[in-house]
């Protein structure tokens, strides 16, 4: 990366996004706390020293009281955090299924960091309330108290994973960790599984288990639906014949968009049509492994649908001042069909770009044009 990093590259939409997230948090926690005190703040009568052998009387006193405030806040934050985690996990597949959801994905990391903040307060209250003031170190108690499968230990590990994700959500770490970053952030799924165990092992005392089941069904269902939709969007091609693979009629590729293919079950490749030309690049954005083939060509640049990272079709390089590079592929057109060499060229490698808008090309000849050099630069005001 060649551009400077700042903590958060704020713009108006990020402010609005965060305001909506925290309005949701405030609504959830506020209503939960207020409703808990309103609904459960009354009294009751519990027999005290009642004789089991039937020899003594029962002393019953009615005491007006309210639930412990710390318990209520702890539960409100837990329930809110689980709601946030469920929504966050739905954003990815929703954006795949309906592109109107893509703006939610753009700032999803803000949602994730907010989730960590909510979960951290929940965890801190739990350690203070349940695990402090005793004969054990509170952290030792978290991992050793509560039976063979202490539910809070699952929550503690999940919180540690959420911390890891929140701490490395910045683009600095994205660039520094390279491909590892994506694998690291897939830990959100183990964290989700740990949270589900955290809820299930409470035996219904905390969140109703049905809530966890509903969350799993929604999250799992959306992921399956998104995966199923991808089957229609990515053409699976047979292995290469003499180094070239028939990737279909170039006229089937929408202008300024791509067709995604896989060859022999390998990496996904995006074949873009733009300005009367064709170019094939890796489908994987260098930023967060977003699906470039679901993006568009904007201002002559392949633009990732997730965060707007851009690459020149000619050589797979981001325009200056950015320095990301993706692998490119060779193409040729014969009798209206586009042929792909599935062997990737080094990231950022220029190669002949196919021109297809000349009338004679549609008839079947092949024309290739050598890239004249990378002149495109990032649009003024571009700030990811």
């Amino acid at each position: 990366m060649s551009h400077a990093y700042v903590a958060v590259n704020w713009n108006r939409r990020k402010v609005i996004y965060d305001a909506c997230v925290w309005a949701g948090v405030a609504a959830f926690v506020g209503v939960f706390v207020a409703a808990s005190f309103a609904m459960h703040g009354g009294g009751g009568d519990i027999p005290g020293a009642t004789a089991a052998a039937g020899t003594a009387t029962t002393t019953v006193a009615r005491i007006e009281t309210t639930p412990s405030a710390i318990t209520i806040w702890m539960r409100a934050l837990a329930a809110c955090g689980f709601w946030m985690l469920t929504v966050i996990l739905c954003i990815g597949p929703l954006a795949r299924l309906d592109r109107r959801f893509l703006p939610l994905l753009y700032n999803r990391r803000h949602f994730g960091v907010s989730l960590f903040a909510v979960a951290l307060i929940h965890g801190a209250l739990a350690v203070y309330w349940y695990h402090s003031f005793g004969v054990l170190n509170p952290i030792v108690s978290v991992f050793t108290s509560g039976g063979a499968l202490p539910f809070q230990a699952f929550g503690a590990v999940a919180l540690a994973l959420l911390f890891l994700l929140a701490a490395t959500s910045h683009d600095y770490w994205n660039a520094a960790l390279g491909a590892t970053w994506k694998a690291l952030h897939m830990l959100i799924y183990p964290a989700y599984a740990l949270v589900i165990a955290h809820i299930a092992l409470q035996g219904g005392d905390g969140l109703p288990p049905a809530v966890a089941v509903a969350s799993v069904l929604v999250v799992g269902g959306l992921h399956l639906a998104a995966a199923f939709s991808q089957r229609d969007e990515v053409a699976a091609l047979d292995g290469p014949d003499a180094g070239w693979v028939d990737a279909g009629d170039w006229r089937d590729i929408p202008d300024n968009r791509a067709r995604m293919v896989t060859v022999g079950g390998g990496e996904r490749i995006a074949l873009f049509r733009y300005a009367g030309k064709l170019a094939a690049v890796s489908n994987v954005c260098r930023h967060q492994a977003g699906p470039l083939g679901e993006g568009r060509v904007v201002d002559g640049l392949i633009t990732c649908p997730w965060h707007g990272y851009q690459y020149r079709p000619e050589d797979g390089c981001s325009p200056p001042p950015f320095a990301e590079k993706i692998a490119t592929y060779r193409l040729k057109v014969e009798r209206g069909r586009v042929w792909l060499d599935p062997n990737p060229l080094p990231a950022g490698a220029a190669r002949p770009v196919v021109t297809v808008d000349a009338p004679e090309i549609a008839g079947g000849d092949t024309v290739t044009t050598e890239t004249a050099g990378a002149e495109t630069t990032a649009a003024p005001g571009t700030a990811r």
Partner: protein
Amino acid sequence: MTSNKNAPFFIGYRPFPAALTRWYLALAAVFVLASGGGGYWLAAQQAAPAPGNWDTAATTTMRGILMLRPYPALHRLNPAAPGGVESVLLVRQGKHSADAWARGFDRQAVSARGYAITRGGWKMLEIPDADALAVDGDGGGDADLETLRALLEIQPLGPAELAGEIVDSKCFLGVMKPGSGMTHKACAELCLRGGIPPILVAADADGRKIGTLLARADGGSAAAELAEFAADPVRVSGQLQRQGGLLFMRVDAGGVQRR
């Protein structure tokens, strides 16, 4: 297939597509309303905590005879109490027994100062420091003391077997609401390891909740050894007995079984 392929292409650092503005206003409203609705619904699913008081606003001073075993307790005459004796369990602040501080006062007339914890007919006093316990020179009068001592003789009530949940008395009686159940299990374990008296919360034949202190068969504290059973559904067998206003079960060896 992906729907809305022709939806305006959003790029975060460029102006927001006007065609999506109304969609996102609706989505934001749905999210905030769903958050509030979810918060309300989940609050309604929470079981109402039972009433219990932990009065931390002011200390209370009580006088009576201190009995150390199985758990430190102060007993005093009270005609309105069952059997004419009101019994108050003594604990320290935090998750700790008052045993160490009470050891020098066994069977003596003492005054105890602390924060009252009450639930139903149960009473407990949380002692803030060792000086809060002191020998009470008068003790309410010699005649009363003799009457009280006579009433503190252990009354055997016979063998019993009860099914329920073992809780730590301090949280259950009012420090935490709720102070029972699986979410409270680790806390109850810590309290019991610290010597807080364990109570078996069970239901009698009529479904009424009954609370029984649990002690070892030899009459000593069973708190630490019962810690592992806290919050689990258990069946407990032993010998019931009454001392003053407190109901105990001396638990048989191996007398606690998970259900």
